[in-house]
């Protein structure tokens, strides 16, 4: 089974004085859904790029499936991990069917013709992400939610055992965001390893088995949602007063820790050393 393990991982962008990821050791076990959280600029996307062999570590090691990622060929890695990167802009207006079909490239290469198995994988991926009706639509005419679903469909069409997603629900409305998280939960139950970067602490707490909270390129906390999303940790990392409440239910997420950011004045009061009210 494949999962990631990194040790002493450090990366500094050439034009930056401060490392984006610093001496980071982490294990992302296979078969789990892991959410990487953290403030803007805490190194989430950089970590993902290091795990996916887009950036070479300045120091430390990254292994995937027991083999250093540097030794993975691009095509072998593409058959093992389906990726939904943060943003992408197609120069030319391709159709949704063409975009999702690109997910078959790791299996086809430059020459092999698309066969029945490939077509079935693409249809199935479009159906699961609810974009089958949009197959003929040019991607630039889609709404943000539709486009994001089409990109997730492309990663599914790769039929890789692992999925990595960088803020897959950024700028989506609540229904589309929930639909993506529900889909990820189904995939996780079906045995896929899911790694996702997100800003949505509450959905991460409900849908991920494990959370990794980054701060300044280091791991501030990791473990189950209950272990990571404590008031002290969240306030320290984000620098904002919060209350943690249990998810009221109903449903499978009942009791999951939910972060409620408090009003800004609380900040001022805290700074003045006044006590905080704990009215639930």
């Amino acid at each position: 089974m494949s999962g990631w393990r990194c040790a002493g991982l450090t990366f500094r962008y050439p034009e930056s004085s401060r490392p984006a990821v610093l001496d980071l050791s982490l294990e992302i076990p296979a078969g789990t859904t892991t959410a990487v959280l953290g403030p803007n600029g805490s190194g989430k996307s950089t970590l993902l790029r290091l795990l996916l062999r887009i950036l070479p570590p300045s120091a430390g090691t990254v292994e995937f499936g027991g083999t250093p990622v540097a030794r993975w060929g691009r095509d072998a890695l593409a058959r093992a991990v389906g990726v939904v990167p943060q943003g992408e802009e197609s120069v030319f207006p391709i159709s949704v069917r063409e975009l999702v079909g690109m997910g078959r490239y790791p299996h086809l290469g430059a020459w092999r013709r698309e066969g029945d198995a490939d077509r079935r994988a693409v249809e199935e991926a479009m159906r699961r992400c609810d974009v089958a009706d949009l197959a003929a639509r040019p991607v630039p005419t889609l709404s943000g939610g539709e486009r994001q679903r089409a990109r997730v469909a492309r990663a599914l069409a790769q039929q890789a055992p692992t999925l990595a997603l960088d803020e897959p629900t950024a700028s989506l409305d609540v229904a589309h965001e929930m639909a993506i998280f529900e889909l990820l939960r189904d995939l996780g139950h079906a045995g896929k390893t899911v790694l996702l970067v997100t800003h949505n602490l509450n959905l991460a707490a409900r849908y991920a088995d494990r959370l990794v909270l980054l701060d300044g390129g280091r791991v501030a906390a990791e473990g189950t949602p209950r272990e990571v999303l404590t008031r002290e940790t969240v306030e320290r990392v984000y620098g904002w007063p919060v209350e943690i409440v249990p998810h009221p239910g109903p449903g499978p997420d009942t009791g999951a820790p939910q972060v409620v950011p408090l009003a800004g004045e609380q900040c001022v009061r805290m700074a003045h050393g006044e006590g905080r009210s704990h009215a639930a």
Partner: protein
Amino acid sequence: MKPLARLLLLAAVLAGALLLSVRLGAVRLGTREVVDALRGAGDPATVAIVRRLRVPRSLLAALVGGALAASGACFQALLRNPLAEPYVLGVSGGAAVGAVAVIVLGASAASGTVALAAFAGAALSIVLVLRLAASAGRTLDTRVLLLAGVVAGAFFNACILLVLTFSDAESFRAALFWMMGSFSGATWREIGLLALAGGPALLLMAALARPLNLLSIGEETAAYLGVRTERVKLAAYGTASLLTAASVAVSGVIGFVGLVIPHVVRMLWGPDHRFLIPASVLLGATFLVLADVLARTAAAPTELPIGVVTAFVGVPFFLWILRRRAA
């Protein structure tokens, strides 16, 4: 219509354009006469016109048109820029420096020396631009490549102006005519040179078609889908540049084909490079063959610069397609 059927149709149209191009000129020929002359039968003067003048000229126009259109399609995907065209990275400038230099030194524009010097200049610019771009980082950043190409092009233009400043009136005129592009000096030698570069280049481009599809949705995404992006970028740059270099060496600088033909194909049939590249080759070839017919016949006996014709025909056509698509 299936893609293959479309390509066959485009090939048939090209064949028709070639026949028309061989028939029309100062002496008008019938299809029958052309067929006879190709077999070596009939009036010896006609045989000479067909075999030595019209066929080489028409074939060269077709090859150059195909090469420039394919190169343009490739550059547009590589640079992720719809405004890219074969000359955007300075290849034509490098070629022109080579050509103008030997013209001013006294080489006749019809001789192989000019073509050779142009090709050498182009090859030099290809290496220079790549070195400039590659020195900026570990990987080839196509935005830097574009900048390096534009800067190199500007430098070459300055070199050309400098050389022309010290040239006499006759070589000034010859250099200017070379830069405007023409097929008037076409012989089988030029055709051979271009076919030699074009055959392998087209095969390479066929292998690059799918990776270019992926590259055009984003470099990082392409890498995640298994594309060896650095290798593909280098191969695409090298192939498209060499095709352009060979074209410019044999026919001078002919604008517009490489910019507009890939757009026309995309607007009509979509952006899949597996179809876009062969279709651009066929349509680009047809377009330049017909443009050359116009250049030879519209103001006969004066021959119009081919670049003027490609722009005068291409711009309205392009506008029409844009409007049709907007409607």
